[in-house]
């Protein structure tokens, strides 16, 4: 391994990072998760911790840019140079930049999340076969409603697993229309539009109106990018493939290598290449943002390039699904920061008179039902176009599915949950886009995992906290500085925390405790605020230190929730339970989430 001259390193261990902007190639929560996992590689072998913040005060500022992007070290277009980073220090030092003319993926092709359909939000599988034909992008074939769909397995004809692709016909992003889909045609400055447009903007972003008349209603949203069919390079970069297209008199309904001797896949961006000669490269496997970020963060922590070809800090990109850190990488980073201190075993100290369970009860966690759902897909593409589609894709998110996507997943293997919440009298446990829930009544059997996206499609993969308002039954989901409010199947959001009156000093909401008369205590770090569900605003004067009102709970809790009238403060895999008598809060039990709540063996 090599370090930078003078062993440049951080002289504090709680490192902060700011994701300054995003690439359009991946869903934002996938990008957030890729960066978090890349940091976790290094924190697993050092005393370092990485906390996400939302401003330039961060130690490591992460940004996507193209060509000259402000630091005097220009990127070079597609392939070649992928990213770079600066050694530890103030200002631009420690920052990591990623070339956004690359196709960022998880290393195995574009990541296209799906909505509705019957695949529980699973990502598209490219290429896939439908009616014997191969598709490398979403398609409207097989449907008469022009909705874009894809198969989530390699062969739709056999597996019949599908979902709808990100499309402005399903939803829009940001804007001021709360994610409502486009309305076509719409009027803008007196002109009629039947597709998204970048007219009226100088940043090139595609937008649409969510009513028929923008001039009158001023309601709009941004159109989701079509990563599966957006071309790079060529003479039409950023435009969409047009299928089918004619090339040398033949018709093509997918990207092709014909006409080239470098093996790159390309497509035309009009229906006739022979006439218009407009083309670009199709999405390929792309570069794993997770692996490239892990490498760049190695630089940002003080590692230079190594000569060991199998190591993460080797300068050339190499896709792998193995654990990316090589012994050489670990020796290098520990040369700078030392190893990760072993966590001393800390059985929870108890302040309760209740007898501690000598061994966790042996009630076993039931595995997911193995019976496959009998019914076929309820909506989505059926036979050839002539047969026309069945069921509109607007069918709202179905009830929680009865079959888990991966029977091998076991709730007892989860170390720390993202969020825990009582919803409809049942305790729900959220982790990385999946959730489990306790069954009703005795025995507290655990059901799941289920995919969050199947029940609440608009939500990101990583949640910080969740709560259900007991009066209105609205469910609030918090992730970073955003909040989503579900009322049944309809969703409001994402909205920024500013809308609730929580300023930029609140990086995330880590917990919530419902209170009488439609009030809720919202927690962040070592403080909490009183939130009014009806006005959806916090009382700015109500900010209170946690330990002033809840003495005896840990100060660094990652989740706080209410269950059966008691408050639970979670730290690592433990919880401190607080009961309230006559307005006095007292810790009455300290236990394990997995053993005491989930009854794991």
């Amino acid at each position: 391994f090599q370090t930078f001259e003078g062993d440049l390193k951080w002289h504090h261990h709680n490192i902060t990072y700011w994701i300054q902007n995003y690439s359009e190639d991946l869903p934002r929560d996938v990008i957030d998760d890729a960066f978090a996992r890349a940091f976790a590689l290094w924190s697993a072998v050092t005393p370092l911790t990485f906390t996400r913040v939302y401003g330039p005060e961060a130690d490591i500022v992460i940004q996507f840019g193209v060509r000259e992007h402000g630091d005097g070290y220009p990127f070079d277009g597609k392939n070649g140079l992928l990213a770079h980073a600066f050694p530890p220090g103030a200002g631009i030092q420690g920052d990591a930049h990623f070339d956004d003319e690359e196709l960022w993926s998880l290393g195995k092709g574009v990541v296209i999340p799906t909505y509705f359909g019957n695949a529980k939000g699973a990502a598209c599988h490219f290429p896939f076969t439908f009616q014997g034909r191969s598709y490398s992008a979403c398609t409207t074939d097989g449907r008469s409603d022009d909705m874009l769909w894809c198969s989530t397995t390699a062969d739709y004809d056999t597996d019949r697993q599908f979902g709808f692709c990100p499309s402005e016909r399903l939803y829009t992003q940001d804007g001021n229309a709360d994610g409502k889909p486009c309305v076509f045609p719409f009027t803008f400055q007196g002109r009629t539009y039947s597709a998204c447009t970048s007219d009226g903007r100088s940043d090139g972003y595609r937008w649409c109106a969510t009513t028929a008349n923008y001039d009158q209603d001023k309601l709009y949203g941004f159109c989701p990018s079509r990563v599966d069919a957006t071309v790079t390079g060529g003479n039409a970069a950023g435009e969409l493939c047009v299928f089918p297209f004619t090339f040398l008199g033949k018709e093509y309904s997918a990207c092709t290598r014909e006409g080239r001797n470098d093996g790159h896949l390309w497509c035309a961006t009009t229906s006739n290449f022979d006439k218009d000669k407009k083309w670009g490269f199709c999405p390929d496997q792309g570069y794993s943002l997770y692996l490239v970020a892990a490498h760049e963060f190695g630089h940002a922590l003080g590692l230079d390039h190594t000569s060991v070809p199998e190591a993460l800090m080797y300068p050339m990109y190499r896709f792998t699904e193995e654990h990316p850190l090589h012994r050489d990488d670990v020796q290098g980073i520990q040369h700078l920061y030392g190893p990760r201190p072993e966590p001393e075993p800390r059985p929870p100290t108890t302040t309760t008179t209740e007898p501690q369970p000598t061994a966790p009860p042996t009630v076993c966690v039931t595995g997911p039902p193995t019976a496959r759902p009998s019914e076929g897909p309820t909506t989505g593409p059926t036979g050839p176009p002539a047969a026309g589609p069945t069921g509109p894709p607007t069918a709202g998110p179905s009830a929680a599915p009865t079959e888990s996507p991966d029977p091998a997943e076991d709730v007892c293997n989860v170390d720390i949950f993202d969020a825990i919440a009582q919803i409809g009298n049942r305790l729900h446990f959220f982790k990385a886009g999946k959730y489990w829930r306790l069954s009703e009544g005795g025995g507290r059997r655990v059901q799941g995992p289920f995919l969050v996206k199947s029940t609440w499609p608009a939500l990101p993969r990583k949640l910080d906290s969740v709560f259900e308002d007991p009066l209105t039954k609205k469910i609030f989901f918090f992730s970073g500085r955003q909040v989503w409010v579900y009322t049944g199947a309809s969703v409001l959001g994402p909205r920024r925390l500013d809308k609730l009156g929580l300023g930029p000093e609140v990086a995330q909401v880590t917990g919530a405790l419902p209170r009488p008369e439609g009030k809720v205590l919202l927690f962040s770090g070592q403080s909490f605020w009183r939130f009014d569900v009806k006005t959806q605003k916090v009382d700015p004067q109500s900010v209170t230190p946690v330990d002033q009102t809840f003495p005896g709970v840990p100060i660094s809790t990652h989740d706080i929730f209410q269950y059966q009238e008691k408050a639970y403060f979670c730290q690592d895999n433990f919880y401190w339970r607080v009961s309230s008598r006559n307005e006095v809060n007292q810790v009455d039990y300290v236990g394990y989430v997995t053993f005491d709540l989930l009854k794991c063996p």
Partner: protein
Amino acid sequence: APRRRQPTVVVFPGEPQTSLTNRQLAEEYLYRYGYTPGAELSEDGQSLQRALLRFQRRLSLPETGELDSTTLNAMRAPRCGVPDVGG
């Protein structure tokens, strides 16, 4: 069996036709990643050979001092922009 049809290769508009010579690619690469102090290498070939050996040694490639295919492929591979040598 049908005789394999010769693939039709088409000139695509907008595609940069002028590709660098291998030597130009090597000179630019070795300079960009810190193996040579100046962008131009002297014509005698000595400095190129020295720089190639440094590059091959640094990245555990076969040390030939030649601009062979292994070395050219390594120079064409996608990579990190941080120089291998120097600040």
